[in-house]
């Protein structure tokens, strides 16, 4: 962990993202799926929806930090709701 001053929180952050990517790759191989059109009127696959979720979550976290400025973990709850919405409707 001393190498390039790594910290546990950042390490966990990247491990989580890496495992999500691996999970979705396995899912894509095991259960291939056809793209569908959702409320954004664009064709999305599971991977696209994951990308929209991750990018949106980053902005949700920043917005929470900038607007609310306290209780950052609650932003993750908003992200989970957002993720569910994206996977259901987009």
């Amino acid at each position, binding site marked *: 962990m001393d190498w*390039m*001053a*790594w*910290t546990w*929180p*950042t390490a966990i*952050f*990247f491990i989580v993202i890496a495992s999500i990517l691996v999970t979705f790759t396995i899912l894509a191989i095991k259960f291939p799926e056809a793209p569908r059109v959702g409320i954004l009127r*664009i*064709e999305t696959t599971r991977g696209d929806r994951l*990308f929209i979720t991750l*990018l949106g979550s*980053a*902005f949700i976290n*920043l917005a929470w*930090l*900038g607007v609310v*400025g306290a209780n*950052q973990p609650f932003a993750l709850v908003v992200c989970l709701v957002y993720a569910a919405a994206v996977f259901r409707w987009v």
Partner: protein
Amino acid sequence: MEKTVNQKAWFLILPVLILVAFSAVIPLMTVVNYSVQDTFGQNKFFWVGLEWFAEMLASDRMWDALGRQLMFSAIILAIQVPLGVFVALNMPKSGFWSSFCLVMMSLPLLIPWNVVGTIWQIFGRVDIGLLGYTLDALGISYNYTQNTFAAWATIIVMDVWHWTSLVALLAFAGLKSIPDAYYQAAKIDQASRWAIFRYIELPKMMGVLMIAILLRFMDSFMIYTEPFVVTGGGPGNATTLLSIDLVKMALGQFDLGPAAAFSIMYYLVILLISWVFYTVMTNLDNKGG
């Protein structure tokens, strides 16, 4: 015919993956790592959590730079895209002059960024530069080191000079791919020049035009060298665009933590806008545009 499935082919892209890991992924991870720590040098780091992000979100400095950056990108896109299309429409379609125009227009694209900056830096000087001297002789007050408007005008004209040909070349390629039959049909229908442009040329150019807009947006949003050489971000902070501000923070003041937080937000904005462009582009393709 059944497709051959050979998953071993994935191993062939392994070298690229390793290269990208070392040139992009690991540096990006390092930036994330720096954004949550503080350092006083000597390779000693202290955990500060999301403090730098909060500080950056509350700082006028970043929002001002972002505003200037968006304005710069919007202005150059608003000039370069119509101008590039206009140039492409009026270029000779074939023969010697067509090739001549293509070569002449590619010349600015071949010049390195810092050379372009230096050319315009000298060109605009009131004492020895042709542009600055002429404007001054005409009685127009022009000084890009003191006057905000002059500084902005210089960097915008410089970018237009440097990059409009890219849009023109792409638009020209789009125009060349339209079969003659379309124009013949338009002639039979006695379509006006505007109708030909609106219903034949523009839809056929849309694909390459979106690529041109995406490329120009990305490049202008990340621009550093040219305005830095010409104005150095001045007068005051008037032309301090995002990347110039970022370099000042990271290398000038050695504030690694805030600069890392700043870069991540910068990166997220670029990622978001590029995704929007990419989605629009692929949607156009799917519709057979």
